[in-house]
């Protein structure tokens, strides 16, 4: 579990994070969402120590990361895996060497044991046989999977993903999302994902933190988000008419108001449906 208490961070005169507090739960996919410039990337970088917080506390399973000495931080960082937006693979190394790199650096295993572990994680991310390819020779989706393989090769306790779906088609995005979710369960990790992909929010958002202008605006999960009355959140998540309609449909489904057998006219007359959607949202049944 990662706990954030009253995190403040600014650059020069500009305050980016204004007292953010949140809990990232173990064994769950924790999502940080928000518009560009809302501070989610800065928050994630503070969590992994790439930025120092101005004030506040970040604790990893009770260990205060923000005031930890550098040696202790180094040890903790070996329990952290991170998938970057652009995958951040080492260009000059093959897929195998990229994934093996943390093992080379932090273990004294023999070559065979390392290769076995590399093959194991590559199998896990469905990249069997890609060992000898260079990052330039693989697709965007494959790069992300190599990034995930490298992030989990040391069996980390914490996994951070920065925009794991950026630049990917919706189908590949879904594959990556589900892979991250499965791995989180399998390794019982605390996974923190920074995203503004709405498919990810709805599919794998087990614990969602919505950031707005550097502050925590809303916390919940993908079920609760459907019924949220937070205007800022709704404007952000359900930005298009299509998504607003989808929200209404999902909301009515969740409440059991619509199903395959029920006529839409009946639904429209249903007072509970009207109450749920509000006058502005009646278009979905009209």
């Amino acid at each position, binding site marked *: 579990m990662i706990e954030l208490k009253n995190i403040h961070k600014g650059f020069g005169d500009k305050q980016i994070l204004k007292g953010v507090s949140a809990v990232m739960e173990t064994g769950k996919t924790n999502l940080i969402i928000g518009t560009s410039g809302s501070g989610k990337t800065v928050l994630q970088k503070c969590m992994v120590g790439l930025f120092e917080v101005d004030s506040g506390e970040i604790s990893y399973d009770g260990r205060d990361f923000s005031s930890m000495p550098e040696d202790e931080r180094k040890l903790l960082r070996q329990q952290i895996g991170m998938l970057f937006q652009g995958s951040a693979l*080492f*260009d000059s190394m093959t897929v195998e060497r990229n994934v093996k790199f943390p093992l080379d650096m932090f273990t004294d295993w023999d070559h065979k044991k390392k290769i076995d572990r590399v093959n194991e994680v590559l199998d896990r991310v469905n990249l069997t046989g890609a060992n000898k390819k260079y990052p330039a020779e693989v697709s965007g989706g494959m790069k992300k999977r190599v990034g995930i393989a490298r992030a989990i090769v040391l069996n980390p306790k914490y996994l951070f993903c920065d925009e794991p779906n950026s630049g990917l088609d919706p189908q590949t995005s879904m594959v990556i999302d589900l892979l991250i979710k499965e791995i989180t369960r399998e390794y019982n990790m605390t996974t923190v994902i920074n995203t503004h992909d709405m498919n990810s929010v709805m599919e794998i958002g087990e614990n969602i933190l919505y950031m707005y202008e550097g502050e925590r605006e809303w916390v919940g999960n993908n079920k609760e988000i459907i019924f949220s009355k937070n205007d800022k959140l709704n404007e952000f998540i359900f930005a298009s008419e299509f998504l607003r309609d989808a929200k209404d449909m999902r909301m009515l489904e969740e409440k059991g108001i619509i199903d395959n057998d029920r006529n839409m006219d009946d639904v429209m007359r249903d007072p509970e449906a009207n109450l749920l959607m509000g006058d502005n949202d009646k278009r979905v049944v009209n």
Partner: protein
Amino acid sequence: MKFFSTLGSYFIMLKGMFTKPENFKMYWKELMHQCVEIGIGSLGIVSIISVFMGAVSAAQTAYQITNPLIPKTTLSQVVRDTVILEFAPTLVCIVLAGVVGSKIAGELGNMRSTEQIDALEIMGINTKSYLVAPKILAALITIPLLVILAMFLGIWGGRLASVATNIVSADTYDRGLVSGFVAKNVWFALVKAYTFAFIISSIPAFYGYNVKGGALEIGRASTTAVVSSCVLILFADYLLAAILL
């Protein structure tokens, strides 16, 4: 003010390199890799430049020695001392500032902009000691060796040009080489080579390591690194000559 802030950041980066390696074997591998990249990678250009600068030096010296009273061995003495004192350390290092400097700045700048440096940091690796230190150490090992090679090739190039154009005979050239030889000049050249090697590697590493942005900024960082290195080499060249000679 910006100058002092940059200078401060540069020294902080250098200080950050001195930590215990996470895995000595990996650091050693990286050092050897950099030795090959910097040393072997620059061998071709250093060889070509050295031979030609020796040859040009011989031709120009011969052109200026018009008095028949000046012994012909003077030609090789002048070539030898010019090559050892100035051409081999300074000219070669200015060329290397372009070749090696832009490569170091470009490589680190690319790693920074594609978040590879962040990835290493998050793994718990001190990137200053893993990425920057091996480059500086490799430069300190290989560049003085390249300068020594440049001395030999430069003198040999002068001999080749002199003999081929019948300026002096091979025997006369060789006699001139051993006459009035001052060993201190070689040590002076090596002091210069070590100083320049440090400049050539650390300045581009600093600019590359601190790149903010994308391709455009990487290009700018490389250019700034090369220009700064060249200016600093010339400044250090004068300073060392004033102090040591």
